[in-house]
């Protein structure tokens, strides 16, 4: 059908953003002068022209039914001339030019189950990934833990409880870290803990042995022949559960209901404000999966947030606070056990060792 092929539209890219900008933004584009957090979840941006733009930030579970699209569309039509946006943390922002509509919008959207908050020195939405909802690789669920944690720490989102600074939490359901959790104030990371199981019967068909062997960074995968078939053998002691083998070959599996779980990481950041961006560091090496509400994970995150909220100075991000008080104190305050697993043994390990006398005795 050459006709159909001709009509087929491709490579048009996304719509131009200008189509979606409210008039007040078009007018004041690049002219914003300053902003203020009017109250939790509400920002006002003031332009050089004197114009004011009000943004109301609304929580979202990220997973949305199209019905909710329509609901948001209706709200936008009612309160913000049909304009809204999503943030880089998956919250929804209604963009208002009329200050009187702020409170009605808040009342309306809250009543529909979508609370307002997450601005300023608060805990915002948790960046997260697919989990058992869609990914084959997931060592834990994503949305479930996020829901449980946010339910519990909700007062830090809606401004009821105060934090010293923005507190960025992220979750990734496996070491691929699609949530880019590696630079978060608090990161929740799904982990496998059982060496890959090999399905010798299918391996020959689903993947190439040399590719599979090469995929392992620690050389834990060795070619072997079994019942006359080319397959592989796993040196379990060498496995660090990276799942790279699993990514390249469906016949090896890492998923294990009784072994998979969650690790907790702290102290990363991305912004350059004050201190440089940095990776998160291991706080808790392993918590078993305990759906549907992962109470031990929630407890650990809450513990961190609480001791941080109590101990940090204004503007101090989690990592900056820990750096000031020292890791010995962090482990003391949280009660987390410091184990051999906390000590790096990968390629850059030497750069994580204390090669000086600059440690606190406690």
């Amino acid at each position, binding site marked *: 059908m050459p006709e159909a092929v001709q009509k*087929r539209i*491709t*490579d*048009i*890219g*996304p*719509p131009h*953003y200008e189509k*979606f900008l409210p008039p007040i933004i078009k007018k004041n*584009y690049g002219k*914003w*002068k300053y*902003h203020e957090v009017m109250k939790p979840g509400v920002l006002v941006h003031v332009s050089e022209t004197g114009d004011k*733009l009000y943004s109301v930030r609304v929580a979202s579970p*990220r*997973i*949305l*039914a*199209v*019905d*909710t*699209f*329509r609901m*948001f569309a209706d709200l*936008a039509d009612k309160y913000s001339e*049909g304009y809204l*946006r999503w943030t880089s943390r998956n919250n*929804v922002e209604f963009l208002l030019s009329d200050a009187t509509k702020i409170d009605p919008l808040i009342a309306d959207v809250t009543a529909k*189950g979508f609370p307002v908050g997450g601005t300023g020195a608060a805990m915002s939405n948790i*960046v997260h*990934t697919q*989990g*058992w*909802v*869609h990914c084959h690789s997931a060592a834990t669920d994503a*949305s479930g833990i*996020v*829901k449980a944690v946010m*339910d519990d720490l909700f007062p830090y989102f809606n401004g009821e409880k105060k934090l010293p600074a923005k507190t960025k939490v992220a979750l*990734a359901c496996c*070491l691929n*870290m*699609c949530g*880019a959790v*590696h*630079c978060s104030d608090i990161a929740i990371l799904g982990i496998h803990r059982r060496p890959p199981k090999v399905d010798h019967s299918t391996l020959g068909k689903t993947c190439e042995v040399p590719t599979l062997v090469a995929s392992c960074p620690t050389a834990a995968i060795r070619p072997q022949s079994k019942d006359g078939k080319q397959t592989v053998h796993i040196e379990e002691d060498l496995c660090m559960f990276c799942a790279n083998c699993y990514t390249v070959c*469906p016949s090896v599996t890492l998923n294990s*209901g*009784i072994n998979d779980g969650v690790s907790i990481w702290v102290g990363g950041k991305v*912004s*350059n*404000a*004050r*201190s440089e*961006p940095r990776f998160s560091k291991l706080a808790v090496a392993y918590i078993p999966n305990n*759906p*549907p*509400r992962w109470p031990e994970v929630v407890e650990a995150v809450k513990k961190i947030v609480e001791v941080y909220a109590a101990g940090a100075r204004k*503007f101090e991000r989690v990592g900056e606070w820990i750096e000031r008080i020292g890791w010995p104190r962090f482990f003391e305050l949280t009660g987390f056990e410091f184990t051999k697993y906390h000590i790096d043994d*990968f390629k850059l390990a030497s750069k994580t060792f204390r090669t000086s006398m600059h440690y606190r005795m406690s």
Partner: protein
Amino acid sequence: MANSETPLVDQLLTGPWPSFVAEFKKLTARKPIVRAFLGQLEQSYHDKLSHWKHGGIVGVMGYGGGVIGRYSDLAEKFPDVAHFHTIRVNQPAGWFYTSAALRTLADIWDKHGSGMTNMHGSTGDIVFLGTRTENLEPCFADLTKAGFDLGGSGSAMRTPSCCCGMARCEWACYDTMALTYDLTQSFQDELHRPAFPYKFKIKCSGCANDCVASVARADLSIIGTWKDAIQQDDAEVKKYVDGGLDIVNDVCMLCPTRCMRWDAKGSKLSIDNQNCVRCMHCINVMPKALRPGKQRGAALLLGSKAPIVEGALLSTVLVPFVEIKPPYTELKELIEKIWEFWDEHGKNRERIGELVLRVGMGNFLEAIEVAPAPQMILHPRENPYVFYEEYFAEE
């Protein structure tokens, strides 16, 4: 039917945070695929295991990416989710929408898929969660008709993303949305037809606050900054201090280079701008009084990525300052030089940041014709293993 009995996941319906389970429930009445989905999820919650299998290669005609194939390993029990592919759709720069656009997307996805979405995926795309292979092409046709296109997957460029920048922020040092849109349009082929050694992500932040976390998760991080002095309004500074700001402890002492001094007697803040590293802190605290300088542009940083396999990388300074002005020729030429080098020397599944580490930053710079500069490093090398390239032959 066992599908509707989801006691475990139903426990996630309560609590103050909006429930993703509630979102699924909105659709179960009219969508068998969502009912099946919830059944499988309940099973996962019970087994503490994912029941999805490795993805297969599915997609739309002429594109090499944009769809993640997904199949259930419980297809017999839940035949409606035997296929459960996701479609990645390019987001509009800055994630701005009108109610009309939202409704259009809703209608398309209601028609061709589960009706479930991720708003948005971690890379930034609109993610349509769950459909069957035969729906892909029709869905794509409706999307493009409505002015939308697919996002990236596989060894391709991914949809660039950006902070709201000049649209809603006083600190944007360049127009993040304009650049993001332009790059997305300019590199449509690289986005839709995977031909690189691995994925390539671009993220644009208007200033060093880096609200899209570009330094942590973009092969090319474009971060706004300035070259001259911070713009300072002394009267406004005084107002902040009079209003109770502890300027010494909360600003000067937190400046990373301690390049600020507050003279309490003269009520005067002095900034030694040569030593300012443009971290944004003082500006963040006093937006009315301090603003980025006037000579604005961006820094280009290269190579961040998640840990698999050699360990995570942050992006590293490649060009300390460049003006960002349409048609962005200089920038695009540099991107192309980087890709060229990567295409030639990169191994399969080797990100650009890993390649640079493998061949050496110095050699990489030489190849892409960027002069080495001390801004690129924390400090010069500590080890004496220099690969000197020339020597005199003896007799």
